[in-house]
């Protein structure tokens, strides 16, 4: 067969790019490896940033965390752009199916008022929380610009959080028949309801943090762990008990995504803490200061939405996670 003759002559002269060979040996590389490792520039920059004359353009010293090799950070999902968008596209297709089922069957009409009201007051304002999470992860991406493994995973997280904010908004539209009235009501809660003011203050505060690794801890570890437990376990259970199980279908995307992304966040923190005592100390001290903020922020919300035991339960989930990744007390 002609194909065999051809392949016999066409021997490759190398298997992959030289920087990939230096890291992994001279063998065929995965698309994730070629798309990720050593892509970012790391030396000989031309100008000082007009907005930060103390640092180079791509500068690892914008965080207190120090690493011998920043590419020690891995994304367990091995997402590069192509695999990321294809994965999310299939998730959105499923979400789209759920929304259209919900809308076609007019499941919103059948919801008990108490479920609808609680969703508007307590769930829809999460779209603003997610907007802060979007910005915080963009902050991580743009500051971790010296390491593609980090900058890409952080922008995926950032775009995910925008998508999540938009899905929460669509829950609102599904509840109010596309008038937007539920979103207006939820924003009113976000701005003025005492139950939400702590969370809003927390979000605003995270947006002023300078060290991007601290931002990461405040957002993706401390806040998300607590909020995920409050919403995806406890509030879900409440919804199911109170005739709101159809809403759970609409938040399926958010839950699946949050679980998946947690593995990535865990691996980042674990790797940084394992690198050195100094890193572990920074991480522990950020955790301890942000958990105090989080306690104050979430207490009124958790109590109003669920009960007085809700937040302690969420903190137990946080403890468990911290222990698992080796930064517990």
């Amino acid at each position: 067969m002609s194909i065999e003759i051809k392949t016999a002559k066409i021997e490759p002269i190398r298997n992959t790019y030289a920087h990939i060979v230096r890291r992994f040996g001279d063998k065929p590389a995965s698309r994730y490896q070629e798309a990720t490792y050593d892509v970012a520039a790391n030396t000989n920059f031309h100008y000082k940033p007009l907005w930060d004359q103390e640092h180079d353009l791509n500068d690892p010293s914008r965080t207190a965390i120090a690493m011998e090799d920043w590419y020690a950070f891995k994304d367990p999902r091995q997402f590069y752009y192509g695999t990321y968008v294809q994965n999310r596209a299939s998730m959105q297709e499923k979400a789209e199916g759920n929304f259209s089922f919900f809308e076609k069957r007019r499941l919103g009409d059948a919801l008990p008022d108490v479920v609808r009201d609680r969703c508007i007051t307590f769930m829809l304002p999460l779209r603003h929380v997610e907007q802060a999470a979007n910005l915080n992860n963009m902050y991580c991406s743009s500051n971790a610009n010296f390491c593609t493994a980090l900058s890409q995973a952080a922008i995926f997280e950032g775009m995910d959080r925008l998508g999540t904010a938009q899905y929460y908004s669509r829950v609102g539209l599904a509840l109010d028949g596309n008038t937007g009235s539920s979103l207006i009501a939820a924003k009113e809660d976000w701005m003025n309801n005492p139950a939400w003011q702590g969370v809003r203050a927390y979000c605003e505060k995270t947006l002023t943090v300078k060290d991007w690794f601290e931002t990461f801890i405040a957002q993706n570890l401390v806040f998300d762990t607590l909020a995920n437990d409050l919403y995806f376990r406890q509030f879900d259970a409440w919804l199911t008990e109170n005739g709101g199980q159809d809403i759970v279908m609409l938040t399926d995307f958010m839950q699946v995504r949050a679980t998946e992304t947690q593995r990535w966040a865990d691996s980042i923190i674990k790797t940084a803490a394992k690198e050195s005592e100094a890193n572990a100390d920074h991480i522990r001290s950020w955790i301890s200061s942000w958990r105090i903020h989080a306690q104050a922020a979430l207490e009124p919300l958790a109590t109003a939405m669920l009960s007085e035991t809700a937040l302690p339960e969420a903190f137990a989930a946080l403890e468990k996670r911290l222990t698992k990744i080796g930064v517990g007390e």
Partner: protein
Amino acid sequence: MAVKALQEGYHGEFKDSAEKFGGAIVVYIGWDKHLWFCSPKAFPLDPNMPFGAVVENVLPAGFGAHPQFAEIDWDKVEWSLNQQPFTPDMEKSLAEQGFDHKCLLRMKTPGLDGLHGASI
């Protein structure tokens, strides 16, 4: 105009200031109408070297590949230093004749105006 930066006192490092060249000065040399050499060239030179050494060593290395180089009558070359007419003294050092860091030396060779009427 001056730069607008977030904080006061913004200033980049002078990446090519004289002291960074280990005592050498950078001298740029261009040969007019000889575009065989796409651009002027840069040379790190000892400011204490006599101008004659530039003619004897530096120029042949940089421009000797051109067929007209061998025909140059060095007495007839029209020099300019930093865009001012300049009459070199072969014995005197560069520094003594006003060569400083990142200066530009151009030479015109009347009668040798490149090849093929195309300033090659």
